[in-house]
């Protein structure tokens, strides 16, 4: 039998190349290309009065300087609004280069092309831009106050306002036996991949085509965008995502100004041009996420069952809305988690500020929603004096209630219907892993030694695998090699391994014979992209379906050659054979030869397929009417709606009584993403997500001052955790298959990050007895919270008093 491949923790096939230093990341390409660099705004809000390039003109190595006035039609148009939504009544996008006004620090104002990146940066420094600074709007509270506007024609700084509701939540809250009302805050953070963005364009003057390499999460859509902007048919544009050094959401945004400008300049100059973002540029010109202020009203019964939940929140989307309002939509829908609440109302206002744009970062609005719901669960438990796990359990959707319709519209415009899950089992498992029931004893014992321990818990449900579709193409060549391609891109998820596992399993071929290509429009031109934990679900299923087509064809051709019924054939180790009679067999590579009727014998194998070698038994054409030459399969997978993965995290923290430093002693994860293709890779995704979650809970934030300067725009000041900050993570898996797709899988990419701020807040609160309503939290902030709790300014837990929203 062929070795089982689906579900096996096999080693990654991409690794040897990456480990040997033979990766091909964006800036590894294009040796000798001209270098682009950008003059960026130092002001958060300003008019551009004049751009003086005089001093730059004598620099050796200068090739070109472009400002907005130099851009032709289409290139000079505003950037596209990628995801229009009816509620986004005041969507605004920027220009590739500032058109008279800048709205955040880092917005590009002029582009320099030079022979060398050092020279290009010298020239950037010599260009004098005369700005007239305008008052900046920074922070949600200033945005909503709207004393100043980010866009003159957007009243109140309000880009979008959306209400979704099921039942009458305000009434349900008002009439519930118990009610609470409080405010929660989450600050900004960002994807921060270790490789920034980058673009490298190679024009071909002889046929007017262009090949563009971009460190992107969607090469197919970048291709269409570049074609549209340059006025080219898509057939003249190839876009390739080479090895990409992490994405986490920021690289799904497109076209970035640089993608258009570098491609355009390369064509204008007839030269290769490359731009590789530096770290400071990434902080101030790529996207951020997370910032929200939430006002919660909840009504519940004596068991802690939520009867009504009424959430109003303000979302900071930065200076422009190229990616629409996906993030707050996800917050408002995924907030519900694994619970059934009686009546629900979510109302959000999405606001402009003079800061970097906000677009999805791993988790994409879910960490905020989960923070809101899980803090609410903890508040309910505290109010009733009940166990936090018990209150959650009282609200769970039960295993027999799937599919469960939450009655809302999800981010894909489809109904929010959960496909499957087992929340009670996950809770039991995570409680056992963290030692939930024994913890009070442990906490007491530690307290006797002067140590402050706390335990926290949080649950989430993650809509994964959103449509509209992905495709897969699988081809067996006459050497028996299996070439697989799919259009979406890879940034470290191990697609080259997991997709090969699917193919090996479906086709019965050795995995070593399979090679996978992603994100190359030359190989597969229809695709959406890699985001929303969708690659395994969408492309995985599309590739499986393509394999099934190929397999059917292979068995038919082999059946003819072996004079056997295709139904009696199996493929084992790349050989098609009769079940129970393995000597009656034909290698798949020979079937591939026979699948392509030939006139010319270009090699020895091809001889078998030529017109005088093939058996001629019937009068039909060599390629039947409903067939195509070649042993290939192509298919698409387009889901009716998302799959819903779920999980629960728990943590034990220790807080230093003097310094307020938080140390995570234990961290446990139970995760359910349906059937796992490769458990090692799933676990790796969870680990990475949890680390980003811990980063967002305890270390990372975007520290803007009131004038819109990002004060911590470097790795010196933006505290990305090292190994010393991340505890050992214990993981447990459930596998509740999705009934929605052929492989029964759900996505896993974002899961790890989602509940972490909620878990850590819960654990710190348990350790300190002080309300934690704002994340991230630094030792400094916790120290002052303690002081304010002493004076009664900040509430201690266990003190029953209703908060009022300001």
């Amino acid at each position, binding site marked *: 039998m062929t070795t089982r491949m689906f579900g096996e923790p096999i080693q990654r096939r991409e690794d040897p190349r990456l480990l040997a230093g033979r990766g091909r990341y964006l800036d590894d390409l294009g040796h000798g290309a001209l270098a682009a660099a950008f003059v960026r705004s130092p002001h958060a809000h300003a008019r551009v009065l004049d751009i003086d390039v005089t001093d730059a003109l004598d620099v050796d190595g200068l090739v070109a300087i472009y400002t907005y006035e130099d851009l032709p039609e289409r290139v000079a148009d505003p950037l596209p609004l990628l995801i229009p939504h009816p509620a986004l009544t005041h969507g605004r996008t920027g220009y590739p280069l500032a058109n008279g006004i800048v709205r955040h620090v880092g917005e590009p104002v002029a582009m320099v092309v030079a022979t060398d990146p050092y020279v290009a940066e010298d020239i950037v420094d010599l260009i004098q831009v005369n700005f007239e600074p305008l008052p900046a709007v920074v922070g949600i509270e200033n945005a909503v106050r709207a004393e100043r506007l980010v866009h003159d024609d957007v009243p109140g700084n309000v880009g979008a306002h959306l209400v979704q509701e099921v039942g009458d939540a305000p009434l349900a809250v008002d009439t519930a036996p118990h009610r609470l009302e409080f405010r929660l805050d989450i600050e900004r953070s960002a994807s921060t991949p*270790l*490789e920034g963005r980058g673009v490298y364009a190679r024009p071909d003057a002889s046929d007017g085509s262009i090949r563009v390499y971009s460190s992107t999460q969607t090469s197919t859509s970048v291709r269409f965008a570049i074609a549209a902007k340059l006025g080219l048919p898509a057939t003249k544009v190839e876009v390739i995502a080479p*090895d990409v050094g992490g994405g986490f959401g920021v690289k799904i945004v497109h076209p970035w100004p640089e993608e258009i400008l570098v491609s355009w300049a390369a064509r204008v100059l007839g030269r290769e041009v490359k731009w590789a973002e530096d770290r400071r540029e990434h902080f101030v010109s790529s996207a951020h996420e997370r910032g929200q202020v939430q006002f919660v009203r909840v009504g519940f019964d004596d068991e802690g069952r939520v009867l009504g939940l009424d959430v109003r929140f303000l979302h900071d989307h930065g200076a422009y809305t190229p990616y629409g309002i996906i993030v707050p939509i996800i917050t408002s829908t995924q907030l519900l988690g694994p619970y059934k609440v009686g009546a629900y109302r979510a109302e959000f206002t999405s606001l402009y500020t003079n800061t970097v744009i906000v677009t999805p970062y791993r988790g994409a609005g879910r960490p905020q929603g989960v923070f809101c719901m899980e803090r609410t669960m903890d508040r309910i438990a505290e109010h009733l004096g009940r166990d936090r796990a018990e209150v959650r359990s009282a609200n769970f959707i039960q295993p027999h209630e799937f599919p469960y319709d939450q009655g809302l519209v999800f981010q894909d415009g489809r109904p929010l219907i959960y496909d499957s899950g087992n929340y009670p089992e996950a809770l039991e498992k995570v409680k056992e892993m963290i030692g939930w029931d024994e913890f009070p004893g442990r906490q007491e014992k530690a307290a006797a030694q002067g140590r402050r321990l706390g335990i926290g818990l949080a649950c989430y449900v993650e809509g994964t695998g959103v449509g509209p579709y992905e495709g897969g193409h699988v081809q067996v060549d006459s050497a028996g090699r299996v070439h697989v391609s799919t259009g979406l891109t890879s940034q*470290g998820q191990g697609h080259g391994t997991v997709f090969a596992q699917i193919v090996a399993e479906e086709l019965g071929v050795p995995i070593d014979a399979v090679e996978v290509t992603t994100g190359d429009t030359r190989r597969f031109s229809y695709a959406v992209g890699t985001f929303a934990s969708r690659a395994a679900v969408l492309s995985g299923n599309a590739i499986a379906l393509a394999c099934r087509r190929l397999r059917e064809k292979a068995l038919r051709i082999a059946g003819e050659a072996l004079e056997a019924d295709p139904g009696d054939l199996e493929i084992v180790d790349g050989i098609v054979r009769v079940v129970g009679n393995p000597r009656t067999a034909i290698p798949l590579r020979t079937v591939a030869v026979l699948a392509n009727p030939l006139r010319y014998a270009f090699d020895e194998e091809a001889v078998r397929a030529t017109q005088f070698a093939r058996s001629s038994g019937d009068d039909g054409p060599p390629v039947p009417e409903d067939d195509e030459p070649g042993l290939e399969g192509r298919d698409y997978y387009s889901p009716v709606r998302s799959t819903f993965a779920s999980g629960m995290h728990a943590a034990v923290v220790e807080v230093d009584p003097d310094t307020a430093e938080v140390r995570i002693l234990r961290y446990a994860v139970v995760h359910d993403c349906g059937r796992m293709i490769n458990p090692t890779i799933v676990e*790796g995704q969870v680990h990475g997500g949890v680390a980003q979650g811990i980063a967002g809970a305890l270390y990372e934030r975007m520290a803007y001052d009131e004038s819109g300067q990002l004060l911590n725009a470097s790795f010196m000041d933006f505290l990305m955790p090292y190994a010393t900050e991340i505890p050992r993570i214990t993981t447990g898996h459930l596998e509740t298959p999705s009934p929605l797709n052929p492989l029964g899988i759900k996505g896993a990419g974002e899961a790890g990050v989602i509940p972490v701020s909620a878990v850590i807040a819960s654990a710190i609160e348990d350790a300190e007895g002080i309300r934690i309503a704002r994340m991230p939290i630094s030792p400094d902030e916790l120290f002052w919270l303690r002081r304010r709790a002493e004076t009664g300014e900040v509430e201690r837990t266990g003190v029953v008093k209703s908060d009022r929203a300001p």
Partner: protein
Amino acid sequence: MSEDVYEIRLTVNGVPRSARAPARRLLSDFLRHDLGLTGTHVGCEHGVCGCCTVLLDGAPVRSCLMFAVSARAHEVTTVEGLGGPDGSLGPVQRAFQECHALQCGFCTPGFLVAVTALVRDARAAGRAGPTEEEVLEGISGNLCRCTGYQNIVKAVHRAADLMAEHGAEDGGEP
């Protein structure tokens, strides 16, 4: 205006190399763009992320914080020099693969170089490998955004095991 360029001779991965570059050329850029050794990556250019770590005369350094001219006449080891002469992976590289200690792979060369020195030093001190605390300390100059460090820590211990199994010659100088 144009810049003076200097002939820069040094040994990289045991091979004498030379190229001409201006005085301000960073060692990282020199390795990547002048010598074509693009395995060394650049993640922050201010010495924090560790992606550009190379060994300079055996000691880990940030190649983005050093001028190429300062490396004249020195011995540099990059990720490309960690494998066997036949192109096979070295023990640290194999350990990273076995333990799934990389995802996007961008930070990986810096880790591999730093870990090579870390394990080598522990063994040179007559121990089987670094302790857990030394591992955390030893890799705490390198950022990884994908793995949460879990499997990197495992891989360091595994690398020490592999070196012990195969003896010092496989452990590879530097």
